[in-house]
């Protein structure tokens, strides 16, 4: 169980570093998506600790995983798509206004303009 947790932690840290250190807005959004994926994977992993079958009930099934984190993560995935779409639309708007996706250049140009 430890190796999965370490890998999820690596995905989380990769997303976080991408979010805070990249200059390109698109790469920041990719980092945000990685953070979201790490959280989803962590919940699914935690749910699978008490069972090993998918939670589709029938007569013979025993030992199913906990379905509640899966239902929660369904919500989280949809919200993640919403956040991604909104931030991509905003970055399109910024690109049309300033002509760049680099945050330092965007900041310079906006300061020069106003």
């Amino acid at each position: 169980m430890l190796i999965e947790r370490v890998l999820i932690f690596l995905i989380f840290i990769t997303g976080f570093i991408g979010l805070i250190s990249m200059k390109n807005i698109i790469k920041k959004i990719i980092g945000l998506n990685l953070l979201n994926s790490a959280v989803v994977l962590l919940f699914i992993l935690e749910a699978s600790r008490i069972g090993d079958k998918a939670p589709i009930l029938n007569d013979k099934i025993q030992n199913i995983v906990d379905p509640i984190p899966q239902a929660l993560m369904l919500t989280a995935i949809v919200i993640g798509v919403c956040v991604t779409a909104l931030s991509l639309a905003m970055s399109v708007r910024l690109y049309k206004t300033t002509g760049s996706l680099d945050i330092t250049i965007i900041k310079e140009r906006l300061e020069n303009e106003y």
Partner: protein
Amino acid sequence: MKKTSFFKIFLTTFIISLAVLPIILSNKSWPTLARDYLFNQAFNETGASNTVSSIYLGYRLMDTLGETLVLLVAITGTMSILLNLHKQTLESVETESSLSPEKRPQNALRTNLVEVVASKLGPIILLFGLYVMLYGHISPGGGFQGGVIVASAIVFLALGTEVKTKLTNSVVLSRIEAFSFISLILVTTYVVFFTDGFFSSIATDSPFVSASIIILLNIIIGLKVGTSLAVMIIAMMGGQHAH
């Protein structure tokens, strides 16, 4: 300048690791109470053998309503940002290797290969999306998943030019979305008249306990998610798509 920013990034990463590592590496045993209750009762109470479906369309239907509201708000924001943009600039972009029908401005980033494959695959993926949507109560799948597949099928239809369909028109899609959202609100408010109140559980308190309500909600949510995502992606591809 560069060194300090590197140090800052390292320090922030270290602090966030200290905060997150105990959560990720925690070895506390996961409670089995809810799992056992759902294993024994979920099928009898909601009629859906897919337990995930019976949670988000039965026990926690109000959460799903809130989630679709969040989706609606995000789509509205995205569309209001994007639609004003396309009115201002419609520049024609041509790539070097494009063939003659691809040189229309709205098709600049396409190739013949994409057009043919997308319009051949679109109807098949649409059918698969409807299957995932309709069988969400007895197999892996459901409204959200089927809706996303339907959305990708509509995007395929919009990419291709061979199949002429009204389904890629933003106005038609928005009408379907509005209709499905109104039906979702109507279906979720029916608990007001039959049970204790608006926030009571639709599964355990309602007199119509069967899988039919789950199937109905799966269809409504699938239409809602599919059309709203498709509208958004078509807007990102370049405004209203008209065949």
